[in-house]
């Protein structure tokens, strides 16, 4: 039997579609709260995006692809370009076979979960509570000589394990990226400008485009909001809602 190229392409597409469905189901199991928030269509699109991104790193086998998806769920879709996770980038960029890289990445993340996130994610929830407390303060970033310094200091205080893991220069790079993004949306003043760096700290460097957190990008691009200050206020309110929801669920558990 002779199989034409077009038939092979169709078979590959069929295989990919089947795997996407499988991984979408897996995402529901791995991050049930997030999956429920997104709904089936957005979740499927976000999963597809993560799997395509995995391809760019040479992860073509199912195990490595699944790991990449899980890390996207844990650290944000853009974790592979997030300065906070430079250690992971180094593993991704080694010339080793994908299975070896995936194993190394898996081992690294197990250590991260144990030492940075803490047992049951205890350090993470502490950090989220700290961030939530900042939202109640009128000028939480007035303490440093510059806004960047103040943000780095608050991040370090709020999530010291992550700060040690990432390193100060990575946090500074993250803050600068966040302030740049804020400037694009004409967010002015310390509190408003700090919003984007804080969101990136919480949801990852690529949160503005992250399909797992579509409300961030949607609010930033919402054509009905014309006032930058109003947009920032709306975004902060959504973030607080999200934080409250997550922390309430954790407290209930």
């Amino acid at each position, binding site marked *: 039997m002779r199989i034409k190229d077009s038939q092979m392409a169709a078979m590959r597409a069929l295989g*990919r579609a089947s795997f996407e469905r*499988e991984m979408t*189901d897996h995402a529901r199991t791995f*991050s049930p709260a997030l999956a429920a928030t997104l709904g089936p269509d957005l979740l499927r699109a976000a999963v597809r995006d993560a799997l395509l991104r995995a391809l760019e790193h040479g992860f*073509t086998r199912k195990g490595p692809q699944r790991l990449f998806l899980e890390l996207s769920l*844990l650290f944000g879709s853009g974790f592979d370009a997030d300065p906070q996770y430079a250690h992971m980038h180094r593993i991704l960029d080694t010339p080793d076979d994908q299975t070896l890289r995936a194993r190394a990445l898996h081992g690294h993340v197990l250590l991260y979960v144990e030492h940075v996130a803490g047992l049951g994610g205890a350090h993470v929830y502490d950090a989220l509570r700290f961030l939530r407390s900042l939202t109640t303060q009128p000028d939480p970033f007035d303490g440093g000589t510059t806004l960047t310094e103040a943000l780095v200091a608050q991040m370090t205080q709020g999530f010291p394990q992550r700060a040690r893991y990432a390193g100060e220069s990575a946090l500074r790079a993250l803050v600068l990226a966040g302030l740049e993004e804020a400037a694009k949306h004409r967010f002015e003043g310390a509190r408003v400008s700090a919003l984007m760096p804080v969101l990136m700290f919480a949801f990852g460097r690529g949160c503005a485009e992250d399909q797992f957190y579509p409300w961030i990008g949607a609010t930033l691009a919402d054509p009905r909001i014309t006032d930058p200050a109003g947009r920032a206020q709306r975004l902060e309110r959504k973030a607080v809602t999200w934080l409250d929801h997550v922390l309430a669920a954790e407290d209930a558990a």
Partner: protein
Amino acid sequence: MTRVVPPTAPDEPTAGGPADALADAPVQSCPYCCPAMEIEINDTAATTDDMVALHDNADRPTVPCRIRAISRSVNAKAELSNPDGRLRFPGAGQETVTVSLPDDGSWAAFAISGEMASAAAGDALIEVRCTKQGRPLKTTAVVTVCGLRVTTETEQIVPTDRARLRLGVEERVTLTASGALGAVRWQIAEGDGTLSDEAGPRTVYQAHALEQTARIEALDQAGCTVIVTFDVDCNYLLSRARTSTLFPNAPDDRVNAITDAFNEFYETYELTDCLRRSHFFAQVRTEVGGSGEPRREGMNYTPPRLLEIFSYYRRNPAEADLHGRTAAHAANQPAIGNRVYANRLGNGDIASGDGSGYRGRGFLQLTGRANYQAIQNEIDANTPGSGVDIVANPDQAIEIRGGMLSAMAFWSRNNANNQADDGSANADIDGVSNIVNRWGDHAERRQNFRNVSAPAFHLDDCPR
């Protein structure tokens, strides 16, 4: 930073997944198939040479180019196209080309040619796309298609050609530009010669005596550059200018004929360096003078002169009055020749007519039937098919081409090059002179060597 749970090991099957969902099964086969890419025109990172010559009916010059992946790449391919239609890859019908990129990031070669001339610098666009995943544009490059061409007397050179021509010292070459976008500017990029004009479609370049290499550039307003490189060679073709120096009284047509004849045969007879040429032309100049005209030996003697220099007439004095030039009649030159050269130098008796028929002729005054035959044998051996037969037609030796060929053949047959190679001292000149004409003190030959031929060939600057 939400729920933090350990990720699944990459080797484990997915919990709740299908039974055949092996973790190491491939999902699809296109890893790294669309990497970032880099392209270089003319195989260099510089953009100043990103040009290709416009094709013409006879020729389609190509320019080597290369492309590579600059991020992780596996089985990646690049599709190159040129939306403005000025380029081909590189055949006339090849409007696109697909290049496989080496996985290790090394370069892959391709080539372009010019289909339609540029209207402005860099207006030919190369688009590089992946062949998969929606064919995203990965990189671009711009090229100028140059209509500019430069023609010399012997060559046509286009941009990106690596033309290298030979040029004799002080030889002049006319360079004519065509197809340029806007005005053409000429410049000497290397060398000490002179240009007749530095702007305009035509210029004349004259190589300087002391330079070894000359590089002339023609630039048009699109930035197209034609580079003509000359190896200035002391021992290359004889130039008309130099022939005029050797024979200052020769008319132009004779200068041209001497130049052409020498250049036709000099390699065969190994007159390939300035020392040999200086010796050769010192002898020729002595024999034929500044007019450069190869002559037949004159026999226009008076009776007293016949008696003085020829033993035949001393033995037969009555015939001197009969054949010699007097007030009453002209000299009977054939009769004189037949008598004074009868039974000598391979000639027959008086009745044979050989004496007159094979009297001295040409640039080195070849004399006697035996010598004519020996030289003809040399010609036939070294330059068969030359069309010269001085035995059957001795007057070919006083034609420029036949005379030059027979002089060179004489030179070769008598190993004059070996003698010339000894040097340029008086004794060396005399040694060569003895081969050509053993009689006399050779003072004139030394003088012609010192004052005429050695300076003409810049012997002090390029002795070999």
